[in-house]
């Protein structure tokens, strides 16, 4: 199988590492070769963060380059706009419509762009945008936004619901399992 590329982008602290861990666990059960590349350290502190997940018969590079991503899962709308150049021509963006102002916007040195969703679609990019934060809150915690997004991404993969649920059970603490399962299903069925 040709290598598939999934980028998970967002703002440091939003829980993208758990999302990549979940995806990695799931892919391992299918016997794929996998590489997951993460960001630790200074960039994590509220900055723009990106995680690369690659799987296939044989994966060499740990990172995804411009024009290579099959999917970009974005935890925040501006971050979706930031990374579109990394998407393949026929790739797809799954995005949370939540907006988090970066510091240059907060202090008035820059403006948060208007009409991001329209601009992405106008560029001919397949965009699946939805309010993952509300779904996570409905499930019981804003922190489950990562799992709600994975639920939405799951629609484009041929894994069964049971397989996803098992990977969630392997990745989150038991006391938050029900909450996360609910967030996943809300995202998957939204």
């Amino acid at each position, binding site marked *: 199988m040709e290598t598939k590329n999934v980028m998970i982008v967002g*703002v440091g*602290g939003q829980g993208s590492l758990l999302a990549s861990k979940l995806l*990695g*666990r799931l892919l*391992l059960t299918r016997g794929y*070769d*996998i*590489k*997951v*590349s*993460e960001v*630790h*350290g*200074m*960039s*994590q*502190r*509220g*900055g*723009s963060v990106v995680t690369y997940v690659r799987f296939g018969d044989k*994966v*060499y*590079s*740990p*990172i995804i*380059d*411009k*024009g*290579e*991503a099959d999917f970009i899962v974005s935890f925040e709308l*501006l*971050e979706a*706009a*930031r990374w*579109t*150049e*990394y*998407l393949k*021509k026929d790739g797809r963006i799954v995005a949370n419509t939540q907006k*988090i*102002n*970066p*510091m*240059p*916007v*907060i*202090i*008035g*040195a*820059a*403006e*948060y*762009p208007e009409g*991001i969703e329209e*601009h*992405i679609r*106008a*560029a*001919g*990019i397949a965009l699946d945008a939805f309010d993952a934060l509300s779904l996570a809150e409905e499930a019981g915690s804003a922190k489950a936004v990562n799992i709600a997004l994975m639920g939405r991404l799951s629609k484009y993969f041929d894994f069964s619901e049971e397989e996803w649920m098992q990977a969630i059970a392997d990745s989150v603490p038991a006391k938050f399992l029900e909450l996360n399962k609910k967030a996943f299903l809300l995202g998957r069925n939204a």
Partner: protein
Amino acid sequence: MKKLMLGNEAVARGLFEGGCTFVSSYPGTPSTEITEAVARYKEVYAEWAPNEKVAMESAFGASLAGKRAFCGMKHVGLNVAADPLFTLSYTGVNGGLVIGVADDAGMHSSQNEQDSRHYARAAKIPMLEPADSAEALAFTKLAFTLSEEYDTPVFIKMCTRVSHSQSVVEEGERVESVKPYKKDPAKYIMMPGNAKKRHPVVEERTRRLVAFAEESEINRVENGADRSMGFITSSTSYQYVKEAVGDRYPVLKLGMIWPMPEQKLRDFAAKVEKLYVVEELDGFIESHLNSLGLSPIGKDVFSILGEFSQNTVRENLGLPVPQGTVAEENVPQRPPVMCAGCPHRGLFYVLAKNKITVLGDIGCYTLGAVPPLSALDSTLCMGASVSGLHGFVKAMEGAADGNTVGVIGDSTFMHSGITGLVNIAYNNSNATVIILDNSITGMTGHQQNPTTGLNLKGDPASKIDLEALCRAVGIERVTVVDPYDLAATEKAVKEELASGKPGVIISRRACALLKYVKHPGPIKVDADKCRSCRACMKIGCPAISMQNGKAVIDNTLCTGCGVCTQLCKFGAL
């Protein structure tokens, strides 16, 4: 069983399987998780040392005692440990000794992008360089074998993309290996008479290691049908080459980057038309090839700066490069910021407000340099805030008195701030040092240190009394403030700067991200009282923004630290 593991976790697994029993390290991105992960194996004693020099010397002691030992650090940490390093090369080892060092090409979380491979050549110590997690595990085990067989410390050289990428590994069994301690002054007492006899041993060892490099499968030739070009490469650059060109061209993958083979390189060069060297940072392999009279294409094409990727290889070889679409022209940057509730914010607000010159240091508080606080004047290396402050104040001959401070975190102060403070007291400069005591090593992800009262395993440990320590080295004026209290912090800073004597202010408040820290909950905004003065925006808190002219608090971020409340003159916050 196959498992997905971070490169750093795979090194830890390799330490475990390789029979390591002693680990001493200092945290530093991207090396930290090696030591955190190995601490989870009950068979391995693991600790955080106050700095890398102490860590390496402790590992030496364990090796001398006959145990397999490891110390881990980031590239700049190896500079701190360079003193024991160069002589460890002469003494060699008893139990196997492995030194983990992780470079940070692209400077994701570092102050420079130095190339640690130079240390291997300079100190004449072999260096293994894994390209993924499976190799990280295998090479770490091999490193112990080589260490004991060749009587030398051995480097495992990681980099951000290998350390922080998960890939598939297969776990093996642990071997146990302990040697008896035997007194051997000629080998371990490095005074001139003995050291002169050890130097030729080191040179002979390198010759034997070159022979190993010629034969070992760790330096592997992968044949390709098309010999119009060929690549000599290692580490993550190997992955980018394979990603870009597949199996078409021959590749010589160096798993041991020092010492390098000679004949193997010559043979490879002879069978390809165009010889490329693909390596991040300096032209280390390239200069070795040049010394052999082989003239590869290297740094003329592949940059000395930053990280590579598969597109770097494609571009530089003139291959088609995938293109994406830019949908939004002006996407504002999102730089890292101090977290909401960060105790450093209040202090930096006070320093910026009073236009104080601030010599900074390495840690989360380096983010005090970022607008709108823009509070720092310099950041050089661990400890340089304190010692740099001394030189600055002395050289300004009074002009810096009363308006200059150094800021340093608790862990960094333990690492290399204490000696600078001794210098301030001993050579009497009118310097004010502020220790930002947030009770944890923050930036690298919450590691314990000698000020926290806990050790790496989370067990209770001796806790340094910072106030007593400062007084003991000769600083008479030691003040403690809570940086959430702006008025008290400003008073303390002004009093100390006016004192005309060396002094230390301890700005003490635990990191807001620590699990045990309880927060009062988000600040509420009374929109009717908000006069849109933007005073609350001066502290650069990510939880506060202005919407339709009124201050708005992000309830998912705000901890209720109350620093913004003290800035609002109208009672809106």
